[in-house]
């Protein structure tokens, strides 16, 4: 397996088969006298911003601090990763992870209250 080719920027799937974000970053742990190992998958807009430029990340964090939002990092321990093939499948429940708060907030306050938001057509696959 090649971390950069097969894991980074891959679709993360949780244990319920839910698409739970992309693998935005990979954290490697350097250990004295031993080979480095993958610690966790690092997810979220901060990581994306950092990959473009560290300055963008600082700017994003300052802006967040100003509106008073605390950021809980969304990290998936490597030990939870079950399968890497086409997608990265991890033994987590995305709904309980910090990355889910925007989705939950939108579902409860914006999308949910609109009539018809519960109508599903999932049985109508052609």
């Amino acid at each position, binding site marked *: 397996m090649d971390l950069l*080719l097969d894991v*980074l*920027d*891959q*679709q*993360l799937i949780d244990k319920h088969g*839910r*698409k*739970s*974000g*992309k693998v*935005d970053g990979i954290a490697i742990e350097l250990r004295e006298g031993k080979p480095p190992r993958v610690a966790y998958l690092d997810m979220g807009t901060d990581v*994306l911003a950092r*990959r*473009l430029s560290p300055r963008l990340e600082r700017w994003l964090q300052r802006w967040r601090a100003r509106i008073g939002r605390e950021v809980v990092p969304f990290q998936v321990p490597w030990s939870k990763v079950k399968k890497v093939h*086409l997608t990265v499948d991890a033994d987590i429940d995305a709904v309980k992870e910090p990355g889910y708060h*925007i*989705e*939950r907030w*939108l*579902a409860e306050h*914006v*999308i*949910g209250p*609109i009539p*018809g*938001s*519960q*109508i*599903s*057509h*999932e049985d*109508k*696959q*052609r």
Partner: protein
Amino acid sequence: MKNVLKVALGVLTGIGGFLDVGAIATSAEAGAVFGPRLLWVVAFGTLCIIFLVEMAGRLAAVSKHTLADALRERFGWKYFVIPFSCEVVVDLLVLAAEIGGVCLALQFVTGISYRWFAIPVALLLWLLIWLGSFAFVEDATSILGLVTLAFVVGAIKMRPDWHSVAAGFVPSAPAHDGPHYWYIALSIIGAIISPYLIYFYSSGAVEDGWSVKELRVNRVVATIGMGFGSVVAMGVMICAATTLLPAGIGMDDYAQAPLMLSRALGMWGFYLFAAALGVACFGACIEITLELAYLNAQTFGWNWGENVAPKKNARFAAIYTGAVLVAACITIVAGDPLKLTLFTMALTVTVLPLLLLPMIMLMNDRKFLGKHRNGWISNTMGVVIVVTVIVLAIFAIPLQILGG
């Protein structure tokens, strides 16, 4: 039998997806100013989009990845963020232009200024996506899209000079008005090679659960579907060439545009023109709106799907809801829908290489496509497409200033 049905639906989708405000406006403008001389550009653009759509469908069927998924994965966030952001901006503008097209059709029929229709049209658009299933949305736009065949009927009934029509398929440089000629040629390419169509098609293939078994269907659908759409666009150009050009009416005076069909079909022609314009643009609106939501969801890895209840993929639903609102506001503020259309087509061309070059590279990637990688025909065409769009992208801005 099931495959026949799939092909039929795909072909209809092709007509619906291919023909939008851009294709109608650029073809009509070309016909009104240069007669059928730019037909070769439509033919060339069609050949390109057939290959590109086939590739997007093949990628989805073989790798189960949509184009956006695969591009981010293969080229990384740091690269993909560029075509992604460009695409979002261009799509919002194109959506605004398409909404403008629907509103213009309503203006023709009612006489009330198009601006008043932007919000109602946006609401109807949103409602269909909010409540409908993917199959419903796809089939409804496809079947309604058949009304655009009126342009083919109109073109034939106008008894064009078939010799000059045939001559239009031979690439030629104009004797006069060079910059304007090339500007329209470039806009036609921008209108036909729509990135939204490519992204939408690949997402649709995944929504419909395509697998390797669908590869043949994919090839037929891409060819016949896009080919049919192209014939309609050519019909538009010939209609304009036989009605607007002799009357000396340019497209700047778009209030005269219904003449394109009313000359051949009388009062029915007038209403058919409005209906064809409205339906084609509305179909495109649905595709672009959904595509914006797909693109964002696939880039950031959210749950997505038109069949899932909005509450279950709230971010996906929020994106299309927001996109419709923003685009409707752009329609109202931007003024002249025709100018907006031509401008967005040129803008599309400018950002095309950012998508198409990596896409062709991706189509040669063993990891994604295995033995279904591009063969030499697709790769030759791929090189032709990429070189063409790079040249066009370089000239897009200068030509817009000189000829737009």
